[in-house]
């Protein structure tokens, strides 16, 4: 800010050191201090501490000794017991995330597009609300609901399949090949409405005169979708893809609760990366060091995926920070 010209003050300034500029800066630091202190302790320091612990053989409340990169080696290649589990978790997590993106994003866009064409605002708002509602529900509750629906004998899924004269005695939760599709399906139900809201918000920012003009030029609706709507929707697509990948790669609650007794699916086939970290850090052995190393590896994976996505999709519009 350009400071205003010196004001003609009566008499000499009383506190020459404490200028307006300096008091403003001091107040600013005081105002940002509480938030920054909390950010420092509960976010940044946690990551630093994790890095430090990952280089030790800490276990439970025991701080352990410095062992270099041994935990990383164990997880990534040296300890067969762990590597098998870890790479299966990597595979599960990636397949789950890909499945989520591939199902939710296109359907959410189509839904938003269709809702946006409904000229009845009331009905549009009600439908938007209906598809959005699952977003608000606790994943624990959703997982338990769907566990009941997938039940072999008493679940609605098998009953409906029976009504349709399809094979209806699958025990969905006990077949390892079904574990991932079920997780993707439940997440589809939970999150599609969330993405739809973003798409809808962005669709409504598009200037309708663009379509008017295109119509004058004889463009078909298909043309409009391809040449006007989709390019203008790119920020929403970028945002939705990046945030839902970040969320999907951290999936835990759903897999922890959908399968009974925290088994992560039959034989643990659906154990995700965060579930792997949780198991190492908080189950019988409390291998804090190993869990921290796995945490840092997962963090780097997520960061890398986001970076690649942003590269491919182009940066979303940034606020003028």
């Amino acid at each position, binding site marked *: 800010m350009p400071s205003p010209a010196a004001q003609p003050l009566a008499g000499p300034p009383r506190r020459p050191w404490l200028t307006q500029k300096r008091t403003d800066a001091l107040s600013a630091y005081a105002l940002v201090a509480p938030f920054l202190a909390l950010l420092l*302790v509960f976010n940044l320091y946690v990551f630093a501490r994790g890095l430090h612990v990952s280089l030790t053989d800490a276990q439970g409340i025991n701080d352990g000794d410095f062992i270099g990169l041994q935990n990383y080696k164990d997880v990534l290649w040296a300890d067969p017991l762990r590597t098998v589990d870890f790479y299966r978790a990597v595979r599960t997590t990636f397949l789950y995330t890909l499945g989520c993106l591939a199902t939710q994003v296109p359907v959410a866009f189509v839904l938003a597009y269709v809702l946006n064409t409904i000229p009845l605002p009331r009905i549009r708002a009600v439908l938007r609300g209906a598809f959005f509602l699952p977003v608000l529900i606790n994943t624990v509750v959703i997982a338990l609901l769907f566990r009941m629906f997938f039940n072999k004998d008493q679940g609605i899924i098998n009953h409906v399949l029976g009504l349709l004269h399809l094979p209806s005695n699958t025990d969905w939760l006990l077949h390892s090949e079904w574990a991932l599709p079920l997780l993707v399906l439940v997440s589809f139900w939970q999150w599609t409405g969330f993405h739809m809201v973003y798409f809808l918000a962005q669709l409504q920012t598009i200037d309708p005169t663009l379509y008017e003009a295109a119509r004058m030029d004889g463009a078909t609706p298909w043309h409009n979708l391809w040449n006007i709507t989709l390019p203008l929707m790119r920020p929403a697509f970028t945002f939705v893809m990046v945030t839902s990948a970040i969320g999907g790669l951290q999936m835990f609650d759903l897999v922890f609760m959908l399968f009974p007794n925290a088994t992560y699916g039959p034989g643990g086939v659906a154990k995700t990366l965060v579930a792997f970290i949780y198991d190492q850090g908080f189950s019988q052995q409390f291998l804090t060091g190993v869990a921290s190393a796995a945490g840092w590896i997962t963090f780097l994976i997520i960061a890398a995926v986001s970076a690649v996505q942003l590269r491919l999709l182009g940066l979303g519009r940034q606020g003028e920070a």
Partner: protein
Amino acid sequence: MTKPLAPRRIPPLTPWQWAGVALLCLVGLLYLYPLLWLLDSSFRPAVDIFQFPPILFRDLPAALRGYTLGSFRSAFGHWHVGWAFFVSVIVTGSGIALTLLVTSLCAYAFAYLEFPGRRALFALILGTMMLPMTTMITPFYQVLRSLGLTNNLLGLIVPYSVSAFGVFLLRQYYIKIPRSLMECAKTEGAGHLRIWWSIILPLSRPALAALAIVQFRGIWNDFLFPMIILRSDQLYTLPIRIQVMDSQNFNKPYEAIISAGFITALVPMVFFLLFQRQFIEGLAGGLKE
């Protein structure tokens, strides 16, 4: 509610369009089936819950007569769901309050004050916006332990308030507030805290509401962090209480689980129906800017 202007001109729909709208409404209804089932089942005696077709479709009069509060009695009486609800309300309420306090003070400085390091600090805050904290559950637990905050509700409430998104959202809103209002207050001798409290906060109510809603959804539904932090039973939040009920392998209390789940789901749904616009705006807020 729109203003009662001349009736909005709605282009007449063709029969095909009506059919499409009807179809969409049907899909919407089916989409909500799990929630409708939850609503119905939480008022049913345990024996009626797992029947197909649902008793509601089979024998309507009997179904209506059969509604009961039995499962709630079991949930509240035997499983302490009422206490867990109370704990959840305390954690969510204080988490939101603390978030609004620290983020709005911080956003005020970034919006209105000039100070060395301002840009760098703001970039730092934005950079932490998407940090995947779940990958750091073990060091997080250790940090809390060194602060004596494990098995302590403060160990949830205080970390929840670190919302970089909140600082960003509020700052974007604050810079749109006309500066002349603040200049006026300044000439009257008001300090920054005073201006923040009596001018900025009241004027930024929509943004505060949006942030409160985002935080509400996140805190009310959080599961992993309460699970690792809380040890004693009387500190369990609702999702943890439900998980504990579900981990009974012998005589699993299905009806109590369902009614506790219903209560957990009901709270955000009621808020949503009351504040639909703020919900949507709050969640879409990250996109707009």
